[in-house]
């Protein structure tokens, strides 16, 4: 099946640095640091203390709520420390467990359970997307809103990433099993697999594994097609009503990353919890690009070392991709469930946005995939006129960065828009 595109969006000049290569496995040799919060669900309670022996797959952080996702040890060895306040990727501090590996890689599997939702909860599965939400919470929401279309998103959010299409082609069995499980949990009538129309390998692999059970939708990889709002529009032809807290379940759809679906398949068939991430590592000049299967908790430094990326002249390390990723302060930061990829920029490639005057060229308006007037909402946020920014639908902005990317005077529009949203939320909560 082919599907409609959307207006706006862009083919980024940087797309060709992507590495469509097989996953290489990275098993950390020394210590791993596992933060006890890795999704939007909340902080988990530590289940281990200093000196405990742990095995791979053992629960070390238990979710405080029944919908949350557990956190597991990703190496076997000894707990070296339980840190109370470890800097979190997105700001703030959370507890973290530091484990010293004994190099033996001994496992414990998941306990069997009749209820797949329990298995998913215990396996610590979240939706591996820009905002990682615990999967059980997402499934419950979809069920309560009677979502009847499951969309497996095998399109990479940003064009430099290729881990999703790679995962689809390498792990078809897991994906197929995951689809079956989720389909029966939410009672979905139809299943779509969204994939980059150029990823022929992935398309043929999943096509033969799934048979007629799922519709494969090849999409034009124009950025940011893989964002769920645009995905449902292209596939189902419907738009999600954008209130402040919108949700694609409102139109009866559930969009899950292919990595999430594969994790469900692995938990069901092999009784294995989430201990690995499947991510793409790229560099702004295209060298050293790799897909890696890496244990959660591995310092990003070690991942870069594996890819042969030296710290020489390194200017920015980004968790995620260059358009929407978060710049991290320190390469000791561990890989977590929030990390969608790693993008490294050389010092001289760093983009510096500026406090400039808009020339009203309209390029940002033309490019915005959700039909906003970026320069207007950014301008109002900058001037502190938040109600005007809201009148111009600031909360519909998906923070894709296209506007700032094309702006000839380099106004940091996404910065101002995020700032405006945060101010509005802060004002609300203080009222």
């Amino acid at each position, binding site marked *: 099946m082919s599907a409609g595109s959307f207006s706006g969006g862009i083919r980024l000049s940087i797309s060709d640095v992507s590495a469509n290569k097989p996953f290489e496995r990275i098993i950390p040799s020394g210590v791993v640091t596992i933060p006890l919060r890795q999704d939007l669900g909340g902080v988990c309670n530590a289940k281990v203390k200093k000196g405990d022996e742990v095995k791979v797959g053992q629960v070390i952080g238990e979710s405080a709520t029944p919908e949350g996702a557990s956190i597991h040890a990703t190496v076997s060895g000894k707990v070296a420390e339980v840190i109370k306040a470890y800097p979190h990727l997105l700001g703030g501090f959370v507890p973290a467990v530091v484990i010293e590996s004994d190099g033996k890689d001994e496992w414990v599997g998941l306990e069997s359970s009749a209820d797949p939702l329990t298995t998913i909860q215990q396996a610590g599965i979240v939706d591996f997307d820009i905002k990682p939400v615990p999967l059980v919470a997402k499934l419950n929401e979809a069920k309560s809103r009677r979502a009847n279309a499951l969309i497996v998103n095998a399109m990479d959010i940003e064009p430099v990433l290729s881990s999703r299409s790679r995962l689809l082609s390498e792990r078809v069995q897991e994906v197929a099993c995951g689809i079956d499980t989720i389909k029966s949990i939410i009672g979905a009538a139809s299943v779509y697999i969204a994939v980059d129309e150029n990823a022929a390998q992935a398309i043929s692999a999943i096509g033969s594994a799934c048979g007629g059970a799922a519709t494969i939708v090849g999409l034009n990889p124009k950025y940011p097609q893989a964002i769920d709002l645009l995905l449902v529009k292209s596939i189902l032809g419907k738009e999600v009503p954008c209130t402040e807290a919108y949700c694609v379940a409102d139109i009866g759809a559930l969009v899950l990353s292919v990595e999430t679906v594969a994790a469900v398949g692995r938990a069901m068939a092999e009784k294995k919890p989430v201990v690995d991430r499947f991510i793409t590592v790229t560099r702004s000049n295209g060298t050293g690009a790799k897909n890696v299967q890496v244990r959660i908790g591995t310092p990003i430094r070690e991942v870069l070392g594996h890819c042969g990326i030296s710290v020489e002249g390194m200017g920015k390390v980004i968790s995620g991709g260059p358009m*929407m990723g978060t710049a991290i302060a320190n390469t000791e930061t561990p890989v977590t469930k929030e990390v969608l990829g790693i993008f490294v920029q050389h010092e001289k490639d760093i983009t*510096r946005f500026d406090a400039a005057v808009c020339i009203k060229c309209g390029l940002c308006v033309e490019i915005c995939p959700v039909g906003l007037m970026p320069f207007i909402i950014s301008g109002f946020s900058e001037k502190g006129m938040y109600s005007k920014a809201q009148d111009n639908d600031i909360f519909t902005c998906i923070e894709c960065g296209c506007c700032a990317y*094309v702006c000839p005077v380099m106004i940091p529009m996404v910065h101002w828009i995020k700032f405006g949203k945060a101010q509005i939320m802060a004002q609300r909560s203080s009222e």
Partner: protein
Amino acid sequence: MKAPELVVSATPHIHSGNSVRKMMLSIIIALLPAVGMGCYLYGFAALKVIAISVISAVAWEAIFQKMMGREITVSDLSGAASGLIFAMLLPPTLPWWIIIIGTLLLILLGKEIYGGRGCNPFNGVLVAYVALQLSYPQQMIAWAIPEGDLMTEFPPLQVLRDEGVSSLAMYFTNKDLLLGIPIIGAIGEVSKVALLLGGIFLIIRRTISWYIPASFLLGMVIFSGIFWLSDAEQYASPVFHLLAGGGFLAAFFLATDPTTSPVTKPGMIIYGLLCGVLAMIIRMWSQWIDGAYFAIFIISMLTPLLDKIKPRVYGRVKASVSS
């Protein structure tokens, strides 16, 4: 091993590389065919006007920025590009001091007095053009005579005004009008082929979008077409109106000025159509023989209004739900 100092800043982390300087450079490159034709037709006189206009525009820009304590931004080439576009509108005989007055008004009233780039309500080139038309009307129509087999010493639109439709075919073929050889007019406006090449270049480079030029020319064709269909004896054909006068230069290089034109696609299309129609109205029924430039000057006053036409927002729900 020393850990590197990492930069932490907001998204996105990459940029298209687009800049004002690049856009202005594209405009300058796009005008080169027209510059070449102007120099081919009028020789050194045209070159002199162009040089005076560009150099004085850049100089005025630097002087005013210095005086007003702003950053000197001549390296963004916007002054140079404005000076070049301005020269395209002038007759090759214009005395040097009028050109310099023109560029003074261009930079001062078209840019610096309002706070610099991006803040001006009017396109500086048009401000200067209108001012010179009103202050020095004689000098502004003192056409030079190019070499070649000339049938007339007047620009095509003047001939239309003075002698009527029936005589046009005698003086001009469509091919002459298209190439601009030998046609009388302002330095940069006569060769439609040269302007079209430049315009297409700008559209391919995405310096401009096609919305304004296409709707501008369409507006001219529709309006002149209605009259031509009703009475072809009295009104010239849309083809003639497209190929004579300043329609192409106006549509591709003046109406597309980012700051003074609307920002949305529907806004741009309405803007272009209105410009095209008004250009024809002025051409047919006013004292001026060509209205293309005046039309933009006037319609750009509607830009704030046209900017109220917003694009369709994704998933828009009624305000009552969200509040």
